[in-house]
């Protein structure tokens, strides 16, 4: 509390409050322009002018957003950039209907009173504080006789009051700026529809990337694994075939036997590898329902996993598949990164939502950007408008909740 006046945020708040008259003034001039264009919109001259002032509002909004971000510490993301089709008429239409621009106009209007309040509070608190603090310097001068305390004691008292005001000023200004911050956050950022659209767009982009990456991984596995093994197998058999042409030599027969042996074990390994690959594409157990598939999955885990399911009805197959692969990925993470000794999987269906909870007693510290596949997971979950919540403090335990709609 005592150090507030020398903190950086206090000065930034003050600077923000002091830009208020300028920004609100420009905003007011702009509002006059908007009203004039609205009045003139009846004849055609006003329309281009109105379009221009909406676009200008965008610019003003950008400036205000920048100030609010840098000085008032408001976290707002940029709205989508202005887009229009080719041609003047298209541009005119897009500008007139530009939601971001109109929101900025509304911001310019509503912020007028809040700006006045913020500036007045800042000016009053800091100004009066400074004047009173300096009281011992000016109380004798005749410029302000009616304010002057009669004596030294009074002057010192007033100086102390000024000091108190200055200590309070940062908090006062901060409080007075609260409506400003709220307005900037709600009107200068992307609109609510835009936010959801953007989230879905991001989820879609990530899902597409994820799908491509998965296909590529399968192709790589088939190419470098299965196909290479089969070629080697064919090579061994080809060599064995040649040796068998000379089977009357005991040593060549023996070589043929060795080649067939190696081909035999190579074939078995290929089948095993292929089975893993197929299971990665679609586990057969999933056809019998999520419960069965998860029971198989958890039983195979290298770390003991307690499974608890409560599924009165089956979700759609797509959701079952996503839930299954989420569990696979999360349990793989537990085995690979957490160093946990126990894990548990809870799945339940309630009110149209499938909730999957995976817990472990490991070291924690799981985050979407640590290369643990959580990003891809979030993408798949986001694709069906689900959500994922990661609680994994350093030192553990980790608790990851995935929520999916039962139907899509």
């Amino acid at each position, binding site marked *: 509390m005592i150090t507030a006046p020398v903190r950086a945020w206090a000065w930034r708040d003050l600077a923000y409050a002091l830009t208020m008259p300028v920004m609100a003034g420009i905003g007011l001039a702009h509002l006059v322009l908007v009203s004039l264009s609205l009045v003139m919109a009846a004849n055609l001259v006003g329309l281009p002018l109105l379009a221009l002032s909406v676009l200008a509002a965008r610019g003003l909004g950008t400036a205000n957003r920048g100030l609010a971000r840098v000085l008032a510490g408001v976290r707002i993301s940029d709205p989508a950039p202005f887009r229009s089709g080719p041609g003047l008429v298209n541009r005119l239409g897009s500008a007139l209907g530009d939601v971001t621009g109109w929101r900025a106009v509304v911001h310019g209007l509503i912020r007028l009173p809040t700006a006045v309040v913020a500036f007045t509070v800042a000016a009053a608190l800091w100004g009066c504080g400074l004047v009173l603090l300096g009281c011992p310097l000016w109380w004798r001068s005749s410029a302000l006789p009616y304010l002057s305390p009669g004596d030294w004691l009074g002057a010192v008292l007033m100086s102390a009051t000024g000091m108190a005001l200055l200590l309070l000023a940062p908090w006062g200004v901060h409080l007075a700026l609260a409506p400003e911050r709220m307005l900037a956050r709600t009107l200068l950022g992307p609109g609510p529809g835009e936010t959801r659209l953007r989230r879905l767009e991001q989820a879609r982009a990530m899902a597409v990337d994820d799908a491509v990456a998965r296909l590529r991984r399968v192709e790589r596995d088939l*190419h*470098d694994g299965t196909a290479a093994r089969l070629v080697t197998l064919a090579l061994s058999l*080809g*060599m064995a075939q040649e040796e068998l042409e000379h089977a009357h030599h005991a040593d060549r027969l023996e070589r043929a036997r060795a080649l067939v042996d190696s081909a035999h074990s*190579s074939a078995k390994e290929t089948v095993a590898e292929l089975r893993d690959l197929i299971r990665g594409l679609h586990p057969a157990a999933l056809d019998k329902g999520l419960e069965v598939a998860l029971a198989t999955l958890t039983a195979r885990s290298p770390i003991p996993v307690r499974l608890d399911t409560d599924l009165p009805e089956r979700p759609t197959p797509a959701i079952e598949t996503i839930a299954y692969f989420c569990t696979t990925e999360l349990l793989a993470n537990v085995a690979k990164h957490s160093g946990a000794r126990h894990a548990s999987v809870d799945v339940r269906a309630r009110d149209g939502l499938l909730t999957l909870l995976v817990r472990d007693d490991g070291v924690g510290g799981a985050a979407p950007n640590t290369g643990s596949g959580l990003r891809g997971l979030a993408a798949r979950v986001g694709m069906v408008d689900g959500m994922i919540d990661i609680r994994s403090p350093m030192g553990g335990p980790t608790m990851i909740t995935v929520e999916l709609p039962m139907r899509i």
Partner: protein
Amino acid sequence: MRIVIAEDAVLLRDGLCMLLTSRGREVVAAVGDGDALRAAVAEHGPDIAIVDVRMPPSHTDEGLRAAIQIRRDHPRVGVLVFSQYIETRYAAQLLANGANGVGYLLKERVADIKDFLAALDRVAAGETVLDPEVVTQIMGASRRAESLGTLTPRERDVLAMMAEGRSNNAIAKALFLSSGSVEKHVTQIFTKLDLPPSEGDHRRVLAVLRYLQA
């Protein structure tokens, strides 16, 4: 015959080494990526390099690029490109600067050991060997159907076998023709493709190239 092998699948690489060594060929180096291949060829100057197309680090056409470079920098080294799938564009790139001592085969051809070794010998001797699949793809491409239109079905068969690097005698045996009539077909192909007489087998290669680059 001195051979350099570039193949990133260790199992297959070892299998190839074992096969070639057991058949009296000398494998002077067996490597797993393009850079190592270039270095091994520069160091050993082999008769032939067997090159997998897809190798680390990019896992795309690493081997093909190395093969093309080897053909430019070491024209005496035969290059047998060895891949799990056939890309006509790869074949065209590989043959862009002449077709002497080049081969392009599917990996599974290694299972027919005699044919594989024969192909190896031919490439090392400066001939051209293309996988039947390359020819099928080219013949199947509809945009080439037009230029193929002048060839009779029989002539196409013969051309396909020429592309595989077979001699007239071998073609005659495979198609149950007399070697005289094969010769007639070959001459017809050259005439229709407007290839002037030249010394040696070079015209055969040109005939194949004409299709690849059509």
